[in-house]
């Protein structure tokens, strides 16, 4: 019995080593370096000065505000639109296989490529988007150049790119609901809308929760799309926490940007864990 136990632990060692070396060790080190002035080869312990400096960053307030707008807006839209797509794509639609791949396709494209493509599409005068709007006599806004609008334009692009994953998770969730419920509902004479609200939504709760958590974590940490499209601009108006951190890293403020990452890590954890707990409590067993 004892040998058996040892044996199974032995098998964990290779993976455990890789995990420790590539994930645990850098994570612990980053906590350490966030307390230092660091230029990659040499460091000096400066206590909490980095954290103080990070919170004094003038664009930080915009960064926090934008990060929350971005994360919650994209999460909400992904849940609503994704669920809608999933319901349509699990119905008796003839081309549903084809449409499913179309919906999923943007997920496969590199974020940077999506960013560049949409920067062109959203060009205020030559972009396809505003030219199309122009055909209907609408004077399209400057999607990325208007400081008040930029963050919302970015959120739309992120939803376009990410809704495919949400849809697939929802489809899996909806398909796992036993048909009996719908049959019973039909026998009782309920309509489609009732079936959606009282069977589909409550019973695909695990899928909804998964999407919310994934989208929220993704949204709070988003960086690549914003960097490819606006670089946080115009000025600082579409800066997210992650892009502020990146700019500090770029400037060679390694200690400071590490401190920013520690703060981001704690922030994501503080937001996501309570929501995760709350959502799990509401799950129902099928």
């Amino acid at each position, binding site marked *: 019995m004892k040998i058996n136990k040892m044996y199974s632990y032995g098998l964990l060692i290779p993976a455990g080593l890789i995990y420790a*070396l*590539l994930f645990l*060790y*850098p994570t612990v*080190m980053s906590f*350490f*370096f966030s307390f230092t*002035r660091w*230029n*990659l*080869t*040499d*460091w*000096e*312990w400066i206590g909490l*000065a980095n954290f103080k*400096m990070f919170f*004094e*960053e*003038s*664009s930080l307030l915009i960064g926090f505000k934008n990060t929350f707008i971005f994360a919650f807006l994209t999460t909400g839209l992904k849940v609503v639109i994704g669920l809608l797509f999933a319901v349509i794509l699990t119905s008796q639609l003839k081309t549903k296989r084809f449409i499913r791949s179309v919906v999923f396709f943007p997920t496969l494209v590199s974020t940077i490529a999506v960013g560049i493509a949409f920067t062109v599409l959203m*060009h*205020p*005068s030559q972009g396809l988007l505003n030219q199309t709007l122009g055909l209907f006599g609408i004077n399209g806004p*400057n999607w*990325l*150049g208007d*400081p008040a609008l930029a963050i919302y334009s970015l959120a739309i692009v992120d939803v376009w790119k990410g809704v495919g994953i949400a849809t697939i998770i929802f489809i899996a969730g909806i398909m796992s609901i036993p048909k009996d419920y719908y049959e019973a509902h039909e026998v009782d004479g309920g309509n489609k809308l009732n079936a959606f609200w009282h069977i589909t939504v409550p019973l695909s709760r695990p899928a909804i929760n998964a999407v919310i958590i994934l989208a929220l974590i993704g949204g709070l940490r988003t960086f690549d799309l914003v960097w490819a499209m606006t*670089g*946080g*601009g*115009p*000025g*600082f*108006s579409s800066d997210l926490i992650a892009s502020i951190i990146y*700019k*500090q*890293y*770029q*400037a*060679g*403020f390694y*200690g*400071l940007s590490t401190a920013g990452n520690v703060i981001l890590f704690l922030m994501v954890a503080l937001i996501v864990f309570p929501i995760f707990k709350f959502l799990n409590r509401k799950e129902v067993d099928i």
Partner: protein
Amino acid sequence: MNKKTKRNLLFGLLTSLLFITTACGGEQESNAGSGEEGTTVTFLTNNEVNLEGVQAVADEIKEKHNITTKFEIIPSGGEGENIIKTRLSTGEMTDILNHNSGSLFKSLRPEEYFLDISDEPYIDKIQESFLETVSVDDEIYGVPFESALAGGWLYNKKVYEELGLEVPHTWEQLMENNKVIKEAGKIPAVAPYEETWTSQVVLLADYYNVHSEMPDFAEKFTNNEVKFADTPLALRGFEKIQELQKAGYYNDEETSTTYEDGMRMVATGEAAHFPILTFALTQMAENHPDEMDDVGFFGQPGDDADNHGMTLWMPNGIYINKESENAEAAKTWLEYFMSEEGLATFMSKTKAIGPSVVEGVELPDDAYEAVKDMTHYVESGKVAPALEFLSPLKGPNLQQITVEVGLDMVPAKEGADKYDRDVERQAQQLGLEGW
């Protein structure tokens, strides 16, 4: 914390960094291969550099000294800088590096990583003003990659002729010209803010005007004795960016206008002015070869018509890796690059974008008109280096701040204030004294 733990931690860190660099490094081929096949030296440069000239020199070096040059291209800007810093600290640097001179070079701690070349014969040919930007104490580490360049205003000579304008010698005259240009339905000044770095030029190119009145500004700025926001002379740079916007002299859709758009506009006469660094000329000549004679240059004017000068940027330097196994070959490489033949070959492929920093190099007749326009500033000595060559401090967020000021999102004074705080943070992160 004692020294040993510090070293152990450092070692651990470097090991993990090594993983990162091996994971992301594009080309990591070893530079072995000497003997009959000759030596191969590796040459790191960023993707904004025009390689034509240096490639031609490299071909000759291959022919004459049997040294093959292998180029490695990395991104420019902050991203490239990080790659350079990481590769230096992990011992993965190429034999030869092409990188900024001045404060960016000095922040690499050259004395640890680069070969001292102060005893080489060709050093005597190089102007002192450049050597200062590539040396620490008495040791010199680099040679100039190309000519210096200027920050100022490119203008379309045809438009000036059509509208009967004269090159302005004060800011006021410039604004009057702008008014005429706008009334004629042309764009007075291009602001291609899709590339945010371009937004800084009006501020940085104004430094001649600061320097000529306050020669010790850079030193005091570095020592935390003066600020942009409370030095009216320096604040003018921020104000000028904004005045142009307030008067409606920029193009529309600034944030969707690219650097290349800017070149097109001023080359074709769609716009009359383009405040920019003159390395733009190289790419402009590629895109608009026929219009290059229409493009002229003047330094950003101040308030005194008799003191109209220009702000100069020093060229990149070429440095030899101290740890290189091919240091001898790399030295031969540099020696040929700085020889008369080498310089001639380089100049035959890459045209000068400003005054040369090597003695005895004359501006050829087929030089760009805009570069010829610089001659009288140099001859009359009305030239000052940009602030970034006089002070190690340049706040990393300047380009975002100047976009805000340029789009009139915040008042100029507030922008200057923000920049002062940005600089303060940098000084603290660098651990400078007095901050």
